[in-house]
């Protein structure tokens, strides 16, 4: 800043996009998509990748550090971690997707009902969601899990699903409030369209883009919730292999300093979450950001 005057409000045009910058992959989350696809396919076709039986407890080789035979080592029960990761990833990922489907479905219906309802009902419904939000979800999950009995994949997806729909429902409600007095909704209603018809054919296509980011983030938080629960011993039991239940052995691993039991499944978990987040951020990213005035 050698000049005496600082020019204000100049909006320099972006440089002419060169042929190189115009490539189709610019700004797209290629890396995350690739990694996510690799993990996904690896889990789907785990039979081809697994070097050992993931459920077999090899009592001769428990707690072994990674070596040629056991690529990622074995856990405190003598199971091969490399095979367990692919095998368990299937469950972790499907719990994430399944509970997101459940929570999104609840959120869309609830949000739309609340958005279309008269004012007092809307207030009551929104107040109720706030109360539901106010109990720490960990406690609700523990309680529901106790009611449903022994945890399995379906019950845990269900429990996570019905505790994580409120934030999406709020967005849906706001969007529906804005959309519901549009002419085409009125027209559809005049022609005798039912609530679910209007919701599915007219409302959903309009707000789906604004909740897509939250839906993707919901997959992420569902995977985190499952692994946290299983880790704490209130989710899936040890015999059901997921990334979370693999980590529940880490208390013992800490005592023996077996880093591979903690670090390797955890890294897979974190990498997956990172890719999912990147995907979500890509969906949210605003394509045309304005020039800064500062």
């Amino acid at each position: 800043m050698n000049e005496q005057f600082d020019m204000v409000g100049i909006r320099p045009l972006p440089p002419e996009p060169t042929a190189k910058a115009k490539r189709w992959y610019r700004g797209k989350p290629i890396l995350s998509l690739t990694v996510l696809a690799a993990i996904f396919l690896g889990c789907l076709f785990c039979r081809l990748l697994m070097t050992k039986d993931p459920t077999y407890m090899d009592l001769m080789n428990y707690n072994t550090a990674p070596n040629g035979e056991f690529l990622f080592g074995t856990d405190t029960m003598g199971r091969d971690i490399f095979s367990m990761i692919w095998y368990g990833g299937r469950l972790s990922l499907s719990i994430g997707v399944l509970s997101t489907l459940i929570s999104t479905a609840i959120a869309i219906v609830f949000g739309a009902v609340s958005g279309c309802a008269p004012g007092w009902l809307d207030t009551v419904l929104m107040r109720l969601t706030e109360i539901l939000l106010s109990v720490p979800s960990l406690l609700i999950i523990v309680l529901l899990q106790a009611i449903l009995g022994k945890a399995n994949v379906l019950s845990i997806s269900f429990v996570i699903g019905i505790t994580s729909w409120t934030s999406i429902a709020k967005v849906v409600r706001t969007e529906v409030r804005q959309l519901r007095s549009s002419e085409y909704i009125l027209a559809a209603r005049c022609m005798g369209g039912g609530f679910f018809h209007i919701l599915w054919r007219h409302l959903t296509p309009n707000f789906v883009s604004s909740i897509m980011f939250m839906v993707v983030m919901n997959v992420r938080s569902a995977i985190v919730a499952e692994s946290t629960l299983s880790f704490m011993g209130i989710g899936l039991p040890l015999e059901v292999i997921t990334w979370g239940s693999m980590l529940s052995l880490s208390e013992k691993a800490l005592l023996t300093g077996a880093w591979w039991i903690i670090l390797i499944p955890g890294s897979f978990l974190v990498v997956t979450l990172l890719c999912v987040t990147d995907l979500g951020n890509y969906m949210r990213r605003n394509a045309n950001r304005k020039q800064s005035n500062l």
Partner: protein
Amino acid sequence: MKKRNLAAYFGKKIFVFFLSVLLLSIAVFYISRLAPGDPLVSYYGDRVEKMTPEEREWAEGKLGLNDPITVQYIRWLDSAFHGDFGISYKYKMDVVEVIGSRIGNTLILGGVGFLLIFVASMLLGVLCAWHEDRLLDRVICKIGTISSCVPEFWLSLVLILIFSVTLRWLPSSGAYSIGKSGDIGDRIAHLILPLTVVVLGHLWYYAYMIRNKILEEVRADYVLLAKAKGLTKRSVMFRHCLRNVIPSYLSIMAIAVPHILGGTYVVETVFSYPGIGTLSYESARYQDYNLLMLLCLLSGILVILCNIIAQIINEQIDPRIKAQDAAETLEVGEP
């Protein structure tokens, strides 16, 4: 006239608060009673299995467990108004005492964590916004995104592995070493790891939020005017943009209180830190109804309170929110 309006405004808020708490208590009471599992076991221990049916009935009658659930709720509510929340089945003590002995630990962990997050996220957000899209911003954003993806329990495990198991610098569990409960230094040493996890787990979420808010603000026209009249970048940023962002940041931080509290629950369990988190986890597992009720109520009240505070802040900043709500209610004549 204005004064009456104000009284009505706060009266309505207080009414909503009590109604919410009442509904919350009913919900928690019913859910906790629906859960299977035998509260007698947590009260009498393994002796329950050897009890005859008559003894069992007597024991249930003594704890008031075989009345209809509505009667149980009304009885609970009645004694709760007298400050009596019952005894913990597991600890055989007044639940208020059980919680009282632990709540301090959680308040320290959560409170210090909250303050650190509050200050650090603002600094980080301003730093990123200042260097928008430059190297520093991009690097911080990348690191922040990564840090927000690491589940809290795993971060705790990794930190324990590094700092307690391998380096042996810091203790891995508890709030103080045995026999050193008064030693401040020892307590701080026990606090470092849990605190790090609590802060790292939430920091980026709020820092990113304030970064984006400032970036939105920076694009407003008044910034152009301020620059045009010769203000420096620093004074525009701190005296105008930041000042405009802070009220909405405050309301976000009010909602953040319960989130951070919920975060300490997991962290406490991993570090076996004697606080409310470990207590609620235990009480839910062992069907310790009275304890669980009060814990849920406490955290619920905190959340409801924070929500109302956030709402009030929002309405004070931007009266349009209220007007809009009113308009919405008016317009809803016909479905």
